[in-house]
């Protein structure tokens, strides 16, 4: 109990600092932080599945893209207001997650990884194939007039950097707290039980398929939320968001930060995003660093930064 309270306080503290950073950082870093927050949401969604439930998916770009396309296409073709488009994005990714989850969860371990990879690849190809609708690889640019919306009389303009940061911050905060709630208490206990020992959990009377499916759906929907947010905020939807590299991204972020820790995805996303950003000015081959890190993490720190800290010093840092 007190452990959970400690963690909650830490989260609130982190949120306070994040909010305050917009007054301190240079405008570029505020922009970068906006992106980091959205990608952290993506990684937090991934973490629910990989970190807390122990299921390693190689296809989360599919869910990100589901949110991105559902919201973006609704806005582009039907002029749905942004708020509604955002909700459509979330709903779209939820539907995709349930369907893929029902199928993919019939497999385990390596087969699960490959099945998610294959479904995701098919989804990526579909965004190319139906280019008449999706714009294919060139994608679609949301018109400027579709980029602002009216919230209870308050006009929020997505092309404004400050607005964008604060919306990203709000969504991040909501998802962080949602993850906090979902990974503690009865639901969280189910997830961790499935991760720790699925066979035993079934013999304690849990329907682990349903537990996994709930985790999968939650995970995919959060990833889709990030996708919807990304598309609407930056006004562009394109198939490169559905490609393999975008599936590796949340895996890498989570792995670096610490799978199964609440704040690991944020830490991993921030570190990796800034690292890649700095490196791309220095070397053409910044992906090499990603490669080296993936190997280094699996070899020496499979539990990531926060995971290692948790195991060594602070067990409450879950």
């Amino acid at each position, binding site marked *: 109990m007190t452990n959970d309270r400690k963690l909650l306080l830490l989260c609130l503290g982190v949120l306070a600092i994040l909010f305050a950073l917009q007054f301190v950082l240079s405008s570029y870093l505020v922009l970068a932080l906006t992106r980091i927050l959205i990608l952290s949401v993506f990684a937090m969604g991934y973490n629910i599945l990989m970190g807390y439930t122990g299921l390693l998916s190689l296809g989360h770009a599919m869910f990100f893209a589901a949110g991105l396309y559902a919201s973006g296409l609704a806005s582009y073709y039907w002029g749905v207001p942004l708020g509604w488009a955002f909700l459509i994005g979330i709903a779209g990714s939820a539907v995709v997650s349930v369907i893929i989850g029902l199928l993919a969860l019939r497999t385990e371990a390596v087969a699960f990884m490959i099945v998610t990879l294959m479904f995701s690849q098919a989804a990526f190809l579909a965004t190319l194939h139906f280019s008449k609708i999706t714009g294919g690889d060139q994608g679609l640019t949301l018109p400027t007039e579709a980029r602002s919306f009216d919230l209870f009389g308050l006009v929020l303009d997505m092309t404004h950097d400050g607005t964008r940061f604060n919306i990203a911050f709000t969504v991040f905060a909501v998802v962080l707290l949602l993850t906090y709630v979902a990974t503690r208490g009865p639901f969280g206990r189910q997830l961790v039980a499935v991760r720790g020992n699925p066979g035993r959990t079934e013999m304690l009377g849990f329907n682990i398929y349903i537990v996994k499916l709930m985790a999968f759906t939650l995970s995919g929907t959060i990833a889709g939320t990030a996708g919807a947010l990304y598309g609407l905020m930056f006004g562009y939807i394109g198939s490169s968001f559905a490609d393999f590299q975008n599936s590796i991204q949340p895996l890498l972020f989570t792995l670096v930060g610490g799978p199964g820790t609440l704040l690991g995805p944020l830490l991993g996303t921030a570190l990796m995003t800034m690292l890649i950003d700095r490196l791309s000015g220095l070397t053409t081959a910044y992906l090499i660093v990603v490669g080296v890190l993936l190997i280094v993490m*699996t*070899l020496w720190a499979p539990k990531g930064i926060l995971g290692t800290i948790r195991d060594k010093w602070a067990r409450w840092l879950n």
Partner: protein
Amino acid sequence: MDIAPYLLLATLEGLVQASVLTLTALGLSVVFGTMRVVNVAHGEFFMLGAVGAWVCAMLMPGPPWLGFVTALIVAPAIVGLLAAAADWAILKRIDYDPEATIISTIGLMYIIQQVVLMTFGPNAQAVDAPFYYTIRFPWFGYSSYKLFIVVAAIVLVFALWRLMKGSRVGLLMRATQYDKDTAQNFGIPVDRVYSGVFAVGAMMAAIAGVLVVPNQQAHYLMGHDPLLLSFVVVIVGGLGSIPGTIAAAVLIGLSDGLLSVFFTPTLAKIASTLLVALVLVFKPEGLFGKATR
């Protein structure tokens, strides 16, 4: 064009693709069969073979076939050494944990790609075929080199089969595959066998890369497609089953050629990708594999 020559062409193309695919996928399959790990960097070994062929062609004076033959020997050898080193430096240390292996070979994939980008550069590079002769059918011409690929693949598959079934090394490999602990109990150096198998798997891909490059070009991102297709083949054929892998490679190579007659190619790719996913979901032992237990 009439339907008959159309089908003839599709069949020829399918056979060529099946040959390359067989070699590449067999490499993946042998590794999975023995070590129970999936090597995501497999496509990069293919790419390294192709790039190696280009380097050999650059450095070898004399006629193109000389460079080609050199490449056929040198490129797989270097790739094999690299793979053995990767096995020793990474896979062994994570104890061949299947999931950790996938993650770290993804890392390896990026590293190889980027190192090639930094050294070899971003351009697609052509390599001369060892010989030029176009077989002229009444309706179209066809490269004799492509048919050579088919022959070479058959020879190589036969050689692999002999290695596995007829040699002492093959016996040790198979014993390790069936029961690692007992193999150790009979003095079989399991870690050396693993390194060897990983190297042989990579070499198969590299040879396929060398064979393919006079036909296509070497490019640092060319490993992606062979990797995905090999996945498809290995899964449809039944993980780790060599005859299944060959059958699936021929099936998929041929059907890919024929499918594109009727569907748009992207749609055909979507269909085959979904097929793989569904095979894994509903018939995880593969279409040609037998159910275990």
